[in-house]
């Protein structure tokens, strides 16, 4: 497995350089479990797409559909939603087709959820940037944004994160506020835009 196995798009997995070494029947011990995990994941994936499609179709058809020669604003999205529903069903059904291969895109069958703390930190980072940036200016915004993101790392220490946040804030304020003239006050006080 390459090191960036979840790097979606980063690795070149899925492309096979070597031709298959011969006919290998799928009687692997873990194969059954892998297949079930794969089916569950594809069911979720397809279900998500179908649900999105249903939402888009319903909302889209509320706008005027019009006729083919004079399309209303709802026509294009409604068609897209319908296509998405069909694709979602096909994705969910694909692993049940004969000869379906497990994890063909190289991702592990079951998503690894162990990094939830890091994810939370990364997602909170822009939120804190908005909250602090809006009310108190760029310096507090940048500091909070970097600090919370840095805390997501496995090896993070509070001291290291504080230092990193301070360094990035000083450098960032100089770069964006003075050199690039981004119109965001460095320090301010007040709620609202």
């Amino acid at each position: 497995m390459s090191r960036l196995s979840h790097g979606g798009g980063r690795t070149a997995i899925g492309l096979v350089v070597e031709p298959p070494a011969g006919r290998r029947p799928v009687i692997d011990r873990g194969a059954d479990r892998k297949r079930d995990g794969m089916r569950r994941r594809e069911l979720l994936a397809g279900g998500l797409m179908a649900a999105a499609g249903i939402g888009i179709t319903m909302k889209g058809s509320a706008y005027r559909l019009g006729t083919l020669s004079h399309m209303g604003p709802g026509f294009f999205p409604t068609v897209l939603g319908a296509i998405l529903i069909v694709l979602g069903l096909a994705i969910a059904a694909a692993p049940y087709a004969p000869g379906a291969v497990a994890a063909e895109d190289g991702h592990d069958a079951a998503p690894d959820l162990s990094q939830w703390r890091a994810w939370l930190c990364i997602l909170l980072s822009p939120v804190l940037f908005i909250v602090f940036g809006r009310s108190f200016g760029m310096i507090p915004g940048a500091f909070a944004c970097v600090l919370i993101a840095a805390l997501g790392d496995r090896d993070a220490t509070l001291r290291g994160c504080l230092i990193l946040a301070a360094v990035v804030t000083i450098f960032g304020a100089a770069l964006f506020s003075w050199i690039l003239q981004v119109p965001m006050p460095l320090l301010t006080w007040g709620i609202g835009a």
Partner: protein
Amino acid sequence: MIGTALGDLWTGFGVALQPVHLWWCFVGVVVGNMVGVLPGMGPLATISILLPLTFGMKPVAAVLMIAGVMYGAQYGGAICSILLNLPCHPPHAVTCLDGFPMTQQGRGGVALGLTVLSSFVGASWGITLMVFLSPLLVRAALQFGPADICALMLLGLLAGSTLARGSPLKGVAMTVLGLFLGSIGTDIETGTDRFTFGLTQLGDGVELIALALGLFGIAQFMASVNRLAPVNHRYTRIGIRDMRPGLDDLKQAFLPMWRGTIIGSLCSLIPGTGPTIASFVSYAAEKKIAKHPEKFGTGVIAGVVSPEASTHSSVQGDFIPTMSLGIPGDPVMALLLGALMIQGIQPGPQLISEHPDIFWGLVASFWIGNIMLVVLNVPLIGVWVKLLAIPYRFLYPSAMFFVCIAIYAANNDFFQVGEAALIGAFGYVLLLLGFHPAPILLGFVLGPRLEENFRRAMVVSRGDIAIFVERPISAVFIALCALLILSQIYFRLRAANRAIAVPPPPSFST
């Protein structure tokens, strides 16, 4: 014909050599080179972060810089593969196979030197192709009616989503999702607000920068955090002197380099097959025709030179449909077109005649930028290698700040930062479920134009959908689409009949 192209190219050099343009080309190339080396940072996120900076520039400078980041990153990616065995950039993953063994044998410098050389050869060939092919393509494309454009876009989108990595079904689903995201906002023809949920900020649609940074910045960081292995620095001490290849090495490299170049340019002409596929195909081809195929994987020069040349010739070739037809082949090209549209320039076949300075300036800057890269790469490799010592836990929090401030700076609006966070969370869910989000960007950029041309075609034909098969040009594109889908089904069925387990993906780590 050839004469006019050369004349235009001459004016292009005039544009590209203006100090301002030289400067931005240089900035783009250096920044691209740097992020190309850093694992966990991609050219897509970098270009999106730099995008707000381009708003204040002239369109030519903006395009030169963005393109510079793009091909600069390609040079950097090879360094990462050869010295560290890290396939951080998909097109260079295959270079690890023979590049890293060369490094282990103490010939990493030679591998890098040859890579720079073959990259330059590949890129030059790709640029030459662009000079002569683009005007031809444009001449044909100017005859296209709305139905033809529509069919061509359909082909581009289908190819981009089915030939890329992963399941074709999921790829198409991502494209459709992208098309939908592109339709959010005020409908141009009727003025109706679509899917805005009453939020005025969504009236202008989803912000391109927020989408790109959500998918390829935030979601990407979530995927890489705590998962990147520490970098192995054992072999990273490379001096300038080590990089000079011997005469014997050059002899061994010469033919594979040209074969790779040709394969790369062929791949770039098939829509949807980008540099990644080109590099894999050329590696496989080298192995097939080699006298000693068993030696591949132990540090064979051909196994480094051919995929690298192929990557670069295909990267440059990708600009051909992007600039001459307005159909991007990969998400970076989609971003480039997005940047042009932000500048108020409509991509499409009319671009070359309406804005010759952009097109020919870009072509000329490719050469200038590639020469800069060759010159810079030699002394800078040492610097980049030192940069690699920065652990990811310092890198991604800093990048998060850059992401936030870049999105804010695009419109001075906090709303879009939140938009990006939401898109990032959703994008990571997609990654977890095995989707590749790249086609979303293609669909997003092409969506509004696809809808517009579809509407126009339907007005012209008075609602008769048969126009797509009655017009010869669009009929050809539709036939190609059908062929693409049928071939996918055929391969799937054949695999099912054989019931062969897919071999495990190639492993690049030792």
